[in-house]
Structures are given as structure tokens and as C-alpha cells.
């Protein structure tokens, strides 16, 4: 059966969809969608083939856009996507996750919403903002955002969220109560004796290994980490990387020990690829060793960054890997990072990349 590979791309000026067949040799581009609103995250629910795009427009506020026909037509809603009167209003939707028939949306200022009707209406999961650490959460460069959502693949009551800067939190009761999951992650911008707090770390990206819900990886503002106990404790795996700073991380679709990163040169050094030479860094052993993958990527004068949600893998064998840059270029590898090709350029700043593989 013919397979279709869709890349769902969120940008500063709308959502785009690229499509190819299983060879992943030629790509066609459609868009911009969502009325060119700034879109932070575009995902698909593989169970329904429904596409969701979360963002926010300076004029008209936050919304989740939805397409039931793979991007041909779109509707939008923010019904229920609001805090109580008097609180700082929601500015934008930053992250989306569809699992167990439910859509979750993370927003700015940081908070979490749940939709049980396919994104037509939302309910606030107040437990997270009731956490006693909330007054200490601080906005990062992108604002005070809930940018990471990891549903447990089997247990709908469990999921993890990532907040910049609040850290990682976990719920085991569907969002009523939350526990911080940051032990072992560093906060370099605190006094020396306060660098391992319970919360407040600047998590940049949180991902889950395939088939192992307790095996998490985290790119942090201050280091790269691995947890084998669902985030209760974290171990640094940054040795061998060119920098402890970066934004995105992407797991392999089948191998829990394989991870792809795109480290940047440092938070106070420009935040572009080290030495202006682009590389995706891959581990095959859970972060014990790292390999730079450069073939086909620009090796001089590359002054781009890659944002936290802008790298993804597909589920094919061999896995495709994709990343989008701050300069609007989209790079693709059809061989697990061994070689790369630029498949789109001149797009707006790319916020997110996700994949959807369709059979027929």
C-alpha cells in the first residue's frame, strides 16, 4: 500500500504541510494555513487523521485550529480556553498532544487545557496552576510557556508537562495534582549552592523513548539529561556534545537508545549552530556517546538556530529525521541522520515540525 508522509510545520506566519511518498525523495509544499497566524505547534492525531494547530494572533488571541481533511479546510476555536476573569489572559497556544481520544493544549501564560470533543471546546485543568511553586515560575525568552506535553502511552491519567521556566511536572491523576520531576537537572544561573532546586529549571524540550514511558530525555537550558524513572531523577548525558545548550530533541520511532539533538553554541554566544557549521548529533547508546552528522548540512556561515519543537522523526524504516530553522529552511534525512537535504527554504521562522505517516 502506498504510504504518504506529511510534515506538519508551524511557523511565525501560518502552518504549512509538506508531503512525500515513502521514498521521501520529492516533497510538495502547501500553505500557509491558519490565516497566517503565528503557529507554535502543529500535530496530527493518527487515530482520526485530524490535524490541530495551536497559536495566537496579536489581534485576535489564542486558538486551536483544526483540519479534518489533511489541511484542505480549517476551523478554529478557543471556547473555554481562558483563565478566570481578572487573571492575565491567555496569549497563545504553545503545545498540543492528542492521545486516548483527548486533546491537551499548553498555553502562555503557562497552564494546561483539555478537550474531549476534538478541539471544539476546552476545560482548564486547574491543578497545575494551583501547584504551590507557581508564583515562582518565571518567563523565559519565549514567555512563561507550557511548551512540552508528554502523554503516557498506556495510562490516560498520567502525563508530563514542561514549563519554561518552571521545570518538569508529572500527574498520575489526570491533571488534578502534580509533582515536580527535576531532581538532578542544573540551574547554572542560580547561586552555586542553589543549582539543583526542586523546580524552576529551564527545561527546553522533553521527549519519551518509544515503548519505555519511564525513559525520558530532556534538553535543558543548562545541560542534556536522561531519566530512567519517569523524571524522578535525571543524569547528565552532555559529555561528548559540543555544547550543553540547545532546544530540540527527537527520539527514534523504535529504538529507545537512539536520540537526535541539535546543540547550539550557547545561551550567551549567539544561539546558532557551533562554529556556524550545522550538525545533528545522534546517540545510539542512550547518551553515553554522541556522533555528529553533517553530510548535506551547511558547513560554513550557518548562523541559524532551531527551536524546541522544530525537530521530529517519522516512523518509517529507516527513520526519517527533520528539522526547521529560524531562517525558514527545512532539512530532511531519510537515513536516520546519515545524510541531509534541504527540502524547503524561504519559509517564515519555523516553530515546530511533526510528522504524520498515512497508509494509503
Amino acid at each position, binding site marked *: 500500500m502506498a504510504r504518504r508522509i506529511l510534515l506538519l510545520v508551524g511557523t511565525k506566519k501560518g502552518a504549512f504541510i509538506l508531503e512525500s511518498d515513502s521514498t521521501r525523495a520529492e516533497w510538495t509544499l502547501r500553505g500557509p494555513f491558519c490565516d497566517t497566524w503565528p503557529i507554535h505547534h502543529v500535530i496530527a492525531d493518527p487515530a482520526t487523521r485530524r490535524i490541530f494547530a495551536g497559536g495566537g494572533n496579536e489581534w*485576535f488571541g489564542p486558538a486551536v485550529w483544526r483540519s479534518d481533511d489533511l489541511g484542505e479546510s480549517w476551523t478554529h476555536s478557543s471556547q473555554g480556553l*481562558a483563565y478566570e476573569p481578572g487573571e492575565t489572559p491567555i496569549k497563545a497556544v504553545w503545545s498540543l498532544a492528542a492521545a486516548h481520544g483527548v486533546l491537551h493544549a499548553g498555553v502562555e501564560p503557562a497552564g494546561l487545557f483539555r478537550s474531549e470533543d476534538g478541539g471544539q471546546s476546552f476545560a482548564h485543568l486547574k491543578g497545575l496552576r494551583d501547584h504551590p511553586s507557581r508564583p515562582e515560575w518565571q518567563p523565559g525568552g519565549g514567555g512563561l510557556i507550557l511548551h512540552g506535553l508528554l502523554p503516557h502511552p498506556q495510562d490516560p491519567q498520567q502525563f508530563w508537562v514542561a514549563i519554561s521556566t518552571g521545570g518538569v511536572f508529572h500527574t498520575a491523576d489526570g491533571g488534578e495534582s502534580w509533582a515536580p520531576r527535576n531532581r538532578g537537572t542544573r540551574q547554572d544561573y542560580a547561586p552555586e549552592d542553589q543549582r539543583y532546586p526542586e523546580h524552576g529549571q529551564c527545561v527546553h524540550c522533553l521527549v519519551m523513548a518509544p515503548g519505555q514511558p519511564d525513559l525520558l530525555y530532556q534538553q535543558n537550558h543548562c545541560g542534556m539529561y536522561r531519566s530512567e524513572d519517569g523524571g524522578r531523577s535525571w543524569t547528565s548525558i552532555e559529555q561528548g556534545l559540543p555544547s550543553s545548550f540547545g532546544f530540540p530533541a527527537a527520539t527514534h520511532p523504535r529504538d529507545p537508545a537512539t536520540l537526535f539533538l541539535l546543540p547550539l553554541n550557547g545561551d550567551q554566544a549567539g544561539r546558532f549552530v557551533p562554529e556556524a557549521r550545522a550538525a545533528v548529533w545522534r546517540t545510539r547508546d542512550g547518551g553515553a556517546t554522541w556522533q555528529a552528522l553533517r553530510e548535506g548540512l551547511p558547513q560554513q556561515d550557518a548562523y541559524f538556530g532551531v527551536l524546541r519543537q522544530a525537530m521530529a522523526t517519522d516512523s518509517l524504516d529507516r527513520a526519517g529525521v527533520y528539522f526547521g530553522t529560524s531562517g525558514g529552511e527545512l532539512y530532511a534525512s531519510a537515513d536516520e541522520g546519515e545524510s541531509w537535504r534541504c527540502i524547503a527554504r524561504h519559509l517564515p521562522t519555523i516553530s515546530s515540525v511533526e510528522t504524520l505517516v498515512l497508509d494509503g
Partner: protein
Amino acid sequence: MVQVLLPASLVRLFPGAPRQVEMDAASVAQAIAALDQRWPGMRDRICDSTPAIRRHLKVFVDGELANLTTPLRPGAELLVMTAMSGG
């Protein structure tokens, strides 16, 4: 009756919505509620949860800058405009 004038970038989000609407309303808030009745979700595009007119929108009643509580006289013109916003 009052006349409500809507910006093109707003009505584009609600297929079938016209740029100009006639309705009965005694305040800006009532007019926006009536818009939301006809085109569900339009209130969320114009107002935030404070509640207030969104920061980058402006509403004028008979040429005067207004807010949600501004009254509308019979025959009034309510103009919704997008403010200058960059990026």
C-alpha cells in the same frame, strides 16, 4: 438598531460573516454578545478573558474610543478596528 462595522481580517475567520451588521444592542458588550450568537466564537476573537477588548483591537462608538461598557444609542455606529501590530 445600531450599525456594527467589522474588520476584514476578523470576518475572514467566520465564513459568511459580513463586514457590516445591523442589530439591537444597548452597549458594546451586548453588541459583541449578539455577534457571538450569530457567529459562535467571535466574542473570543474580539475580547479577552479579563474581560476587555483585546489589546491590539480598538472599538469606536460614533467616532469615540469605547470599551465594553460604552452605551449604544439607537442609530449608533460601532466600529471595530485592528490596531497597528508588527512582526
